[in-house]
């Protein structure tokens, strides 16, 4: 029973991070039609910025984290303005856009390698301290924190879309770009904004995952694939679906690891992607993808 509770809490905590990755991916996809294969490398580089500010420049952890989030947002703006927009303006195909994000992933990955090398670095937990005891179940503080941040950011984003003017303008852009631009919504600024928010969400996930993953340029690829799996599970077009998909993936993966095979735990996300896409491409909460005739 204790084991099951541990698995649930641990699964949800990890799942919250997958959900954050997925949320950023889905937001960017819904607004701009681009699946960002550079998402993990953007998160990785941002985490390195936090590392540089905190460990190398001696800032306190919290300002360093906020600094890294700001950096991530700028990186998102740069991606949209310097890469995606020029590519779109030149009528790049879907393949071209996907390849451009892959290219950016390589550039960021190599840059991090040049600056920080490939020695594995440790990154501190944002929430530390003695684990909490809830009814006989021992819960590490960082797990609670991850879950709270994940759910909190998702809820915050939800109310942003719901209640703020900019959020509503973004939703309009998502549902009908042409109509939105006819109504005077600056669509291209919405593109930039979704890249900035998406990248910031990824950076948060990266920084929360870094203490357990450790910090090294190539270590966050897994997070990308988990993010994809979560997004696909949730339907890739649904933001609540991304969060639910992330939590679901975290749980499933933990139980598969405990009861089926630990080896399968790492492969599970990939299998899930292939199976979900094959059986129910629209995911758990997404709408069916309609084909044009």
């Amino acid at each position, binding site marked *: 029973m204790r084991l099951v509770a541990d698995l649930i809490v641990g699964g949800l905590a990890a799942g919250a991070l997958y959900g954050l990755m997925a949320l950023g991916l889905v937001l960017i996809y819904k607004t701009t039609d681009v699946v960002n294969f550079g998402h993990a490398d953007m998160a990785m580089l941002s985490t390195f910025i936090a590392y540089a500010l905190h460990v190398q420049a001696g800032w306190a952890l919290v300002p360093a984290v906020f600094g890294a989030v700001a950096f991530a947002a700028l990186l998102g703006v740069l991606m949209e303005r310097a890469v995606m927009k020029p590519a779109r303006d030149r009528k790049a195909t879907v*393949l071209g856009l996907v390849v451009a994000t892959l290219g950016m992933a390589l550039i960021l990955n190599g840059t991090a390698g040049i600056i920080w090398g490939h020695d594995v670095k440790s990154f501190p937990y944002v929430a530390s301290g003695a684990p909490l005891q809830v009814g006989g179940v021992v819960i590490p503080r960082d797990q609670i924190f991850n879950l709270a941040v994940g759910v909190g950011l998702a809820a915050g984003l939800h109310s942003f879309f719901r209640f703020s003017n900019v959020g509503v303008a973004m939703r309009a852009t998502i549902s009908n770009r042409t109509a939105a631009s006819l109504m005077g919504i600056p669509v291209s600024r919405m593109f930039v904004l979704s890249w900035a928010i998406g990248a910031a969400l990824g950076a948060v996930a990266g920084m929360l995952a870094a203490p357990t993953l450790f910090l090294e340029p190539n270590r966050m690829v897994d997070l990308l694939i988990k993010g994809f799996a979560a997004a696909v599970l949730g339907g890739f077009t649904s933001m609540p679906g991304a969060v639910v998909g992330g939590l679901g993936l975290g749980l499933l993966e933990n139980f598969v690891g405990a009861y089926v095979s630990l080896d399968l735990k790492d492969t599970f996300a990939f299998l899930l992607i292939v199976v979900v896409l094959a059986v129910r491409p629209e995911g758990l909460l997404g709408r069916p993808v309609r084909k044009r005739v």
Partner: protein
Amino acid sequence: MRDRVLQAAVAAVVALLPAIVPGYYLYVLTLGMIWAVAAVGLNVLTGFTGQISIGHAGFVGIGAYTSALLALKVGWPFWMTLPAAGFLTAATGWLLGVPALRLSGPYLAIATLGFGTAVSQVLLKWERLTGGYMGLKPPRPSLGSWTLAGDTALYYLTAGVLASMTLAATNLVRSPVGRAFVAVRDSEAAAQASGIDPARTKTLAFAVSAFYAGIAGALYAHMVGYVSPSDFNLLISIFLMSAIVIGGLASIPGSVAGAVVLTVGFQLLSGVRDLRTVVYGLALVLTVIFIPGGLWRATARWRAAGRQRIMVRPSVVEKDHAAS
């Protein structure tokens, strides 16, 4: 005419290179030609049929391990393991093609990415069969008692395989089968109305493409003499994708040129890996933005300089239509 001359010149250079180029560079060129086989196959799938694959190294890995295991555990000679690797990988490609049918664009990219990563994970974890991260050491290719061990012999063997695979791909894409590939890519509706079954066509493209990857994998296993799961990871899939994007989508010679140039660059820059990663990323981004047709097409005018060629400008077309 100019094409013939170019082909003859390329053939002569390829044949004479071993006399001039030192052993190590010959080995690098051999590697380049192996990846060229895989790149040609990937271009049939992605360039011609329009199906993205960001997990193609997975197919290459399946081919490499199939050939290595057949040689090591069953004792088959190379001339049997090579086609066996091709066919088994083609079957895998066909199977992956079935779920891929319902997906397009970015979804297919994600699914194939998942597939590629899953293959290298399975190769890593299935230790009893694959030796895990220790990898396998397949023997050099041999024919009867004659073993091809030297760099030169391996170079010629690979060049021969690449030449025949390239020729076959060129024939294929110009045949009605190739027309069906492009038709499905350009307009699925019009293709269907013409009697083309998009599902069958796409799975066929997956199978053909995987066949090429399987052959490349088998060549790789026996040329290098060592395979491990990390030889077929995501980075290699991205590398293959880069080769066809930079060389030229839907261009067979472009795939070969792209793969050879990128492999040589890859080896030359192996001392500065991170810089290499940045350079390759930059090349990809710049290609997508500035020369979306790839280098082969960008240099077409230069190559066709001597050829008489009717340039079709929209104005000519308009005039024609007004006259009719």
